[in-house]
């Protein structure tokens, strides 16, 4: 077992590889204590582990990238999400991925990385926007094979800006413009919205108090072609199961073809 670099540090921890945490299934009493501890410490419980063929990915709060945000932010850290998506792709038991979004945006690099990962999964993916899917949440929402938005959910389409820094040279403006184009081109490639429409929404004035842009609510997101349909959890699950079934049939077809 390897121990981290500084051997002279007297408080250097040594971890027992066999039992990093107690196995809650083995001892019911300790399981109960562990659950209480989880609620107290993290505000969450360990749900009973049921085998599911769907991998559910929730993206909430700020999408955190290279810089750790102050603690008042609720964040989704991309370094946690990305390997889980790799596991979902690789695990044969996982047949579909459900992405649940309620995000206010965040890091462009991290957001686009997650969006690209979801878009390139070979398994069926369905996204659902509940509450909000703003800013960098938009490319993530459209990255799935099929996307839903709750009737009351909103998506804010607005330009990328560099607050606090004065744009002094044309190069800076051009750089920002390029960053924006990455987001725009991703959304266009993965949804039915037209570039002109998206740009029109993005640069609209008079709707947002602090910014230019548009607040697109439920049905409007579908009307503009950003999102595929209005719906809730039930609709999303139905669609995902339908796609999984289709995928299974396709696989069976390939197998049959091979036999013949």
């Amino acid at each position: 077992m390897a121990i981290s670099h500084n051997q002279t540090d007297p408080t250097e921890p040594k971890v027992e590889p066999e039992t990093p945490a107690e196995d809650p299934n083995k001892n019911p009493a300790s399981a109960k204590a562990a659950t209480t501890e989880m609620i107290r410490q993290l505000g969450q419980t360990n749900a009973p582990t049921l085998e599911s063929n769907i991998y559910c990915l929730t993206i909430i709060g700020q999408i955190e990238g290279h810089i750790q945000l102050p603690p008042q932010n609720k964040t989704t850290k991309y370094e946690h999400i990305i390997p889980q998506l790799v596991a979902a792709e690789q695990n044969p038991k996982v047949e579909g991925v459900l992405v649940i979004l309620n995000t206010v945006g965040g890091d462009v690099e991290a957001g686009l990385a997650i969006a690209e990962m979801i878009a390139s999964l070979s398994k069926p993916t369905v996204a659902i926007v509940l509450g909000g899917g703003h800013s960098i949440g938009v490319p993530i929402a459209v990255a799935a094979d099929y996307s839903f938005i709750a009737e009351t959910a909103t998506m804010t389409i607005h330009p990328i800006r560099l607050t606090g820094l004065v744009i002094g040279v044309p190069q800076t403006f051009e750089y920002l413009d390029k960053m924006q184009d990455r987001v725009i081109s991703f959304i266009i490639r993965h949804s039915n919205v037209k570039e002109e429409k998206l740009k029109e929404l993005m640069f609209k004035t008079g709707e947002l108090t602090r910014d230019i842009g548009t607040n697109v609510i439920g049905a409007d997101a579908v009307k503009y072609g950003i999102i595929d349909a209005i719906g809730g959890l039930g609709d999303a699950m139905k669609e995902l199961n339908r796609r999984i079934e289709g995928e299974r049939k396709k696989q069976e077809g390939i197998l049959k073809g091979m036999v013949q």
Partner: protein
Amino acid sequence: MIHYTILPDELVWQGYNQMEKKAYKEVHVAHMTMIVEQISETEAQIVRLISPNPHDYMNPKYFPGTKIAVEPIFD
């Protein structure tokens, strides 16, 4: 880094300069590397997991926030 969000920057970054720099440690467990925060003499909390095996990231035992037992080494 570009932050693309609807929240005003002053709200997102409030207190950023006052954020305490936590002393994280790196520990190696089997093939995994864990970035941990020491919370007591014998306990540490996983902050981040680094592993070449994607299924380790799905293992609730290694989820960030999970406490692990550590032993101090005196030498």
